[in-house]
């Protein structure tokens, strides 16, 4: 388990960039924690760490954003509105698991029982207005 205390959005982004360098194709990063935790800046850092030069935006409306302009593709999901198996199926989630990319899944609470066994769990907790505790659980972390 890895714990990191971030004091700013910049620190979260830098931490994500370093974290990304340990990821391998096929890894699934499941995010837990509500809104305003810094998940979007984390996604920016993660994409940069994977060597991607695409512009990262929130997948809330698209459900999934694909970033492929770099070394390892990143598939960025937002499961906020996904609540049953059929909805999950029709995001193409199971097909993305077969691709050799990294999956970053926001609102993993929604699909917890469908996460693959080896998923890396990333939890965000709010300590005060600007301070966040990030916890990473998974093999090698």
């Amino acid at each position, binding site marked *: 388990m890895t714990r990191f205390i971030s004091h700013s959005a910049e620190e979260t982004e830098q931490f994500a960039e370093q974290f990304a360098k340990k990821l391998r194709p096929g890894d699934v990063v499941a995010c837990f924690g509500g809104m305003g935790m810094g998940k979007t800046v984390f996604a920016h850092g993660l994409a940069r760490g994977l060597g991607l030069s695409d512009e990262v935006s929130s997948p809330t409306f698209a459900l999934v954003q694909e970033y492929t302009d770099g070394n390892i593709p990143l598939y960025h999901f937002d499961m906020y509105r996904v609540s049953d198996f059929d909805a999950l199926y029709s995001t193409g989630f199971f097909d993305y698991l077969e*691709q050799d990319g990294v999956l970053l899944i926001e609102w993993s609470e929604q699909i917890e029982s469908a996460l693959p066994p080896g998923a890396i769990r990333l939890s965000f907790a709010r300590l005060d207005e600007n301070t966040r505790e990030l916890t990473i659980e998974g093999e090698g972390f």
Partner: protein
Amino acid sequence: MRILAIDTSSQSAGCALLEDGRLLGEFFTNVKLTHSQTILPMVQSLLDQTRASLSDVDLFAVTTGPGSFTGLRIGLSAVKGMAHALGKPCVGVSTLEALAWQFCGQELLVAPVLDARCAQVYTALFRWEGETLTRLEPDQAIPIAQLEQRLKNEKNAVFLVGDGAEMCYNMLNERVPLLRLAPPTMRYTHAGALALAAERAAGLGYTVSAEQLAPAYLRLPQAERELLAKQQSV
């Protein structure tokens, strides 16, 4: 009658050209490449290598599901596009039935199984008696445990085939002694078998237009569908 068959419904992808029961050519791949990037070049190669032209195709066949959400849409889109442009009819075949057709002419039971994830499979049950195929179970999404219940009382050998076959065989073979695993050359969906299934269906009049062709996604039972979030399942 010339049939061009396309399958991108599960892990593998392939296409085949069949003329009056004779397989003229077949292409099969099972690698982690996106079907959307491989299927049309595959069709082009098949046509080139068999010296055939797309305009010679009389009927298009495609697996309509169950299977991968993205995969089904890729295969259906490709077939709809070609059939619509050429004004030719189509036949949609259940992915599970196409898998069963790989055993055409045998005397045995076939249980096609596709991995539906989360310990679920898409499955059905068929009996081949020579040229006669009988469907014993409809296409269903069921937990693997239920598949075990279904198969363990069978008095005859049951052949598992499909992208979930090896997984199910490894999980169940000790408790279901008459379970058999299709050999590697027959384990995944082959477009040649799909073309044979489509030929028979077309003979029975089951053709549709490109516009009518539709995917057949299988829905899970209500109880299974809602158990996604962990706190709900406790």
